[in-house]
């Protein structure tokens, strides 16, 4: 987990007082946070709303209902950099423009996943989409903290393998 993506030090009240609700998120001056204030992330180079849109886009590309937003946020956190800020702001602006073309205020304003997916399908071949999608393959699924959510146990060498720990423990076949 990114050291900069931590349980918010802000109290829930302080956070909510300084922010506005946006989809599943709240955004303030330089941060985005979960609506329940379970986590928050500071942004330096991107607009908070841009980062919130990226997190939603990440979930819409690889939706896992049992994986919390903080893991998607960690997966796209690295786009908050001087090198990538401009291209990401432009990509998200394109996404919002596509949403407005379908009668919504912004991408985050689109309430149903199927409508957001329609917007993404329309830009599937773009470098922006492919960069975000490709980065998520490792950015999301290579987070060790995500593995247990899928039941994956990772390395077993340090525990002596599975020779005495259930390599053949299947009981329903």
């Amino acid at each position, binding site marked *: 987990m990114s050291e900069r993506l931590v349980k918010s030090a802000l109290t829930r009240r302080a956070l909510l007082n300084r922010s506005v609700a946006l989809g599943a998120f709240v955004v303030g001056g330089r941060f985005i946070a979960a609506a329940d204030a379970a986590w928050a992330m500071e942004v330096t180079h991107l607009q908070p709303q841009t980062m919130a849109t990226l997190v939603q886009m990440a979930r819409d590309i690889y939706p896992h209902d049992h994986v919390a937003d903080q893991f998607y946020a960690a997966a796209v956190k690295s786009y908050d950099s001087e090198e990538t800020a401009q291209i990401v702001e432009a990509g998200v602006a394109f996404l919002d423009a596509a949403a407005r073309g379908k009668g919504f205020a912004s991408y985050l304003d689109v309430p149903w996943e199927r409508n957001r997916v329609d917007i993404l399908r329309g830009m599937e071949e773009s470098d922006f989409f492919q960069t975000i999608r490709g980065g998520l393959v490792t950015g999301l699924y290579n987070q060790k903290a995500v593995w247990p959510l899928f039941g994956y146990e990772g*390395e077993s060498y340090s525990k002596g393998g599975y020779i005495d720990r259930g390599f*053949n423990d299947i009981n329903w076949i």
Partner: protein
Amino acid sequence: MSAPFDLNDDSVIVVIGTGAGGGVLSNELAQRGISVVALEAGGRYLPEDYINDEWESFGQLAWLDRRTTSGDWRVAKDFSGLPAWIVKAVGGTTIHWAGASLRIQPHEWKAKTTYGPVQGANLLDWPVDAEEMAPWYEKAETKLGVTRTGGRAGLPGNNNYKVFEAGAKKLGYKEVHTGRMAINAADYDGRMSCQQTGFCFQGCKWGAKWSAAYTDIPRGEATGHLEVRDRAHVLQIEHDASGKVTGVVYADAEGKQHRQKARAVCVAGNSFESPRLLLNSASSLFPDGLANSSGQVGRNYMRHMTGSVYGVFDKPVKMWRGTTMAGIIQDEARHDPSRGFVGGYEMETLSLGLPFMAAFLDPGAWGREFTTALDSYENMAGMWLVGEDMPQETNRVTLNHDVKDQYGLPVPNVNFDDHPNDLAMRRHAYRQGAAIYDAVGATRTLPTPPYPSTHNLGTNRMSENPRDGVVNKWGRTHDIANLFVSDGSVFTTGASENPTLTIVALAIRQSDHIANAMAKGEL
């Protein structure tokens, strides 16, 4: 202990590459008292260095030098710069291999005779056969400690195998077992038994799986007749006016170039780098590259018909626990044209960790069809399908002069089109693989496309007639008497079996040939 040889010592045999071919050959020659300098492009990693984390290990071991691709195979679209998943390290891809050790079937040595004419396929019979290879296979099986051969027991089946076996038996398959594996079921040859740890592809941290990295290489070095230079990337093979090779030029870890003289040169850099090196060594005497009077260097690239099937169940399987390739069904490996294709295929259990499953299940896919499959990762069983693909002259490794590597040399381009026989076989294999899991209650099956190739074969094929191929039955090039090829690129046809055992057997046999030729003063 390791013998240091002088760069100007032209009595040594230079072996290029230290995997199943080059690593074994180097040791076998050294055991016979023959001086060998083995040049390995990669570094040295031993079991304590291996990393049981898929991406981190990939970064440590994989051959990631630039390559390009073309043709209609899906790998060219999904992994355009990564046509192969092979290893750049001392020990080569024997660090990564799953351990399946199967002999080529008798009829497969005679593919042209057995299958008859197949349009678009450049079929040929091998200049060796099952009978001639039998004693070499036995030596290879003994070296590797292959289970279910030589009186050695089989490995126990893991969860993934149990699902696979139950489905296979419901379908009536008969040849179903936990494989002939170069993974110790009991302590053998100074190596311990399998601890069912998984991560066979990332290097066995117990040393239970045979790898040249910690068997043949150190044993060869211990004789005092083998010097292995790691991070020594060979750029060119040189020859004299008579056409005999005289040595090689290689770059060391700092990029500094050296010239090692040699009595003979054995090329074992896998099926992309071996033909590439012969082509990059073109000279005024050999304008089309070394050993290429037939025009066959780089051609007939084979990668096996591959694919995977994953089955999703309503209960946990935990397929990643234990041996990665934990069992096999061999019933479909027969030649039976009534199925709509020539040749056959093996079905072998396989598992990937979550990170690689996300990368390889359906590359490029996204959305809920993809993610709901991964949601069931814990409930998945998996198998790999590996069958004989058709050699085609246009499936080939060529030099891409538009793209240069870190040494300024043209990179290899790998062109591959699936043959209609490959496609028909894959369709059949997907159907049978899905049926196996359906028979034991799968709620969903996932026909998964080929991964970047691990079985790279045929680009310096072996032939009776010099017109048809690059090397003779000993792996000696038809054109140059002291130039050999010692890896899977010599395969005349691919057969349906995982190739490592055959590469090892051919390398042991080649060492015998070289020693005899030296004893007779012919080399």
